[in-house]
């Protein structure tokens, strides 16, 4: 280009534009593709809905194995022995949070039951010292999301004519997956906003932002 020729209006920054846009797009796509736990909906693998009157997303999520202070087994207690979820998580129908059962509840049985097992002895030692196990939280929502266990159990279990209290595991499974198959705990549902909203849409749940985001 010679200096005396009239120039077109130049866009010297356009290359930077495109470059930045491409990099931005690649970052997001890359993050999603290489996200280890990404599991698109797989209806064939998901259990059929067992809660009459409810239509909920079948998405699954392959959570990581989170090490816990005591190797408790949901499979043994809830699955094999058939103890109702609400027997231990008694706060779920009374409060926003389901809560971890108080150690006193564990010791109610384990003062006499299986007191020779090392994991039980670990718990007994903590109980005698007056300490609570520091469980690592597996199913969590961000602090700006207010989820109430009480309201959801009322709708799908307690006020649902087709359900009895023994059916609690089916209602819990809507968000927690089949806990009867896992050890301590594993995140089996994505618990994203999309997951929540899909279910709210299907079951006429409230759609105001401020119902959950307070």
């Amino acid at each position, binding site marked *: 280009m010679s200096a005396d020729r009239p120039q077109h209006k130049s866009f010297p920054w356009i290359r930077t534009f495109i470059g930045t846009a491409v990099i931005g797009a*690649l970052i997001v796509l890359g993050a999603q593709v290489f996200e280890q736990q990404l599991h698109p909906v797989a209806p064939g693998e998901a259990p059929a809905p067992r809660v009459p009157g409810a239509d909920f997303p079948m998405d699954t999520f392959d959570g990581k194995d989170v090490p816990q202070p005591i190797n408790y087994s949901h499979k043994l207690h809830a699955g094999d022995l058939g103890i109702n979820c609400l027997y231990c998580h008694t706060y779920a129908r009374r409060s926003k949070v389901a809560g971890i059962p108080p150690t006193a509840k564990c010791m109610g049985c384990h003062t006499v039951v299986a007191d020779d097992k090392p994991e039980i002895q670990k718990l007994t030692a903590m109980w005698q010292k007056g300490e609570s196990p520091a469980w690592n939280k597996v199913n969590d929502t961000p602090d700006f999301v207010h989820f109430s266990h009480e309201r959801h159990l009322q709708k799908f279990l307690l006020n649902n004519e087709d359900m009895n209290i023994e059916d609690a595991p089916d209602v819990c499974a809507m968000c927690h997956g089949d806990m009867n198959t896992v050890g301590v705990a594993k995140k089996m549902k994505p618990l994203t906003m999309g997951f929540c909203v899909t279910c709210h849409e299907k079951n006429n749940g409230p759609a105001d932002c401020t119902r959950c985001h307070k």
Partner: protein
Amino acid sequence: MSKTKIDRRNFLKVLGLGTAGAAMAGCDMPSYVTSEEGVEKVYSYLAPEEYVIPGIGVWYASTCQQCPQACGVHGRVREGRVLKLEGNPDTATNAGKICQMGQSAIQAHFHPERIQNPTIGGKDATWDDALALIKEKASNASWVTGAVSGHQRVLMDVSREAAGNGRHYAIEAVNTRAWEDASAATLGDANPNLHIDKARAVLTIGADFLGTWGNPVQAMRDYGNFRNAPRGVLMAIEPAMSMTGANADTWVAARPGSEAAVVLGVGHVLMSKHGVSAAGMPSAASAFSAMNPAKVKDLSGVSEAQLNKIADTLMANSPSLVIANASHAAAHAAQVLNLMLGNVGQTITPGASLAAGAMAPVSGSTKDLVGFAMDANAGKIGAAIITGTNPTFLAPKGLDMSAALSKIGFKVAIADFHDETTKSCDVVLPMSSPLESWGTHVPANGAAPGTVHIQQPLMENVYANTRGLGDILLSVAQGAGAEGLDGFEDYYGYLRTAVSAMIGSDMEGDWNKVLQAGFATAASAPTAFKAGGDVALGFSEPASAGTLTLITSARQGMFDGRHANLPWLQEAPDQINKTVWDTCAELHPATAAKLGVKTGDYVSINTANGAISTRVFTYKGIHPDAVNVPMGRGHTDYGTYAENGVNPLTIMDATSGDRSSTELLSSSIAATVTPTGENRYLVRSMDLAEQHGRKLVATITADQFDRNQGGA
């Protein structure tokens, strides 16, 4: 590419397009942005009560310790943590309300700068070593405290007696001492009950009962009733506007130090114009007669018309109530006015005294601050145990407090925060917060007869190695060999035994009822007013007109400076000048114009005791001869949040005049104010006094109200 330098415009374009690209890329993929797993910890209860449910708060009763008034509170406890305080609706003192300082108790409780371990000579030590050292060295120790009452006072007294009768200095800069002394002299009862709600007119002379005087929470409720139909009239005489003055129908600016003369002038007009009799009080009557309106005008700048208006209003609205705290002289004159106007028995009724007098409240004063400094400087104090007060911060330079403290051989601080005083102490014992410890408190103002408020821990210690004040007092008393304390392992055991004896039952159920209520009722007897009431009335000569005088005032929030380390209260605007996080010097616009300064200009304020430099705030709610610097800020050793502002107390004068009657809060000192030439924007929550026609606050004239709203 040489032209592609990134300026603001290009940067925004790149940013916008980059974001758009990222958003488009994100659109079509199921976005599983999940929360963390296994990062947060979740703990269970060990063996909770049946009614304790995670996620649902349980309210427990306790007692607020943010100021000496000891209001009853309910604390919301969830998952083992106290999250919110509200007033206990069943207490007569505060009936379900608390002030901003009470709300901030939560922040003090969880404060990261609390003392966590005992120290000896600044080095971490064990409790056993620290207590053994106190046992060894603190014989004959004097106790330096704030206002105390209840069983904490009992334990302090038995400790002192067992260890050789050291003195007890109770130091409070914000107090009602002038009023107490005047009430004791005229009525024979230092703490009579005041019924603002039953008065039809209230005249206050420097008693900021809606801000910091007495129990403001109770006064605010009474004030609400007082203003309900028929609407009571509130009048205020003070050098600088207080919260109460700002609410008054008539606000009269008096020259600092002349308040007593104005009260005498009101008495003069009542006698001469309205024929009110001072029969049986000859010495008071002669003081009133001598203070004619011309003399009042000369001393205080208050005109005869203003005196007449005040006297007329008091006459037209009976019963009335005259409250004064501006000086001892003003308070004495105010109580005589109450006697003359027939208010005693109507709006002032006898209080009650506890049968267990050892638990009665000891109200503090700055007279004790002066006494402590002088005794220490004279070498009369060998050892001191200091708790609940900060004498180094409160003491004016003239008292030479740091020299005084250095002359005390052995000093112990029982404190929850390090401050200017703990710095110079040999042993510092970390105190649990009031929300973690047991105690009993007898409210000095406005409680139902015999009420003892129970302070109950609302949660476990935030910092494991702290101990409750009561537990520390018990250990110290046991170490000193006090009798009758053997066998009590902790303060809870002691308190439970003592309260059981007080309520006459040691049943578990009755104890639980007391805890549930938040207070117990002990045996008490009503006091009786003495007859007569004649006292000699005097007044002080203020500085002559046109000379500047420095005064200081207390505001709810910083109070006497104890709350300066709480960001919530630093952030809450000053009630009068609306400043946050800083101290300013309040000046009348005319005075400011004369000095050539405006709001935001730095000035140096010089008194005989030194100089401080701070920014000016100009407004009309102050006498032109006064410069008012509110107290509470300007700490040097009270943690991260308390450094800003200046401390006017250092350049005040507590020793001049009659020491038995000068309180720091009502003292004044000649000052010169000189601009430094600097200016910086003064951060205030309300920068304009005008609404500029925006009708932010709807108003109506009294005339319109009478015609349209069915007024009288």
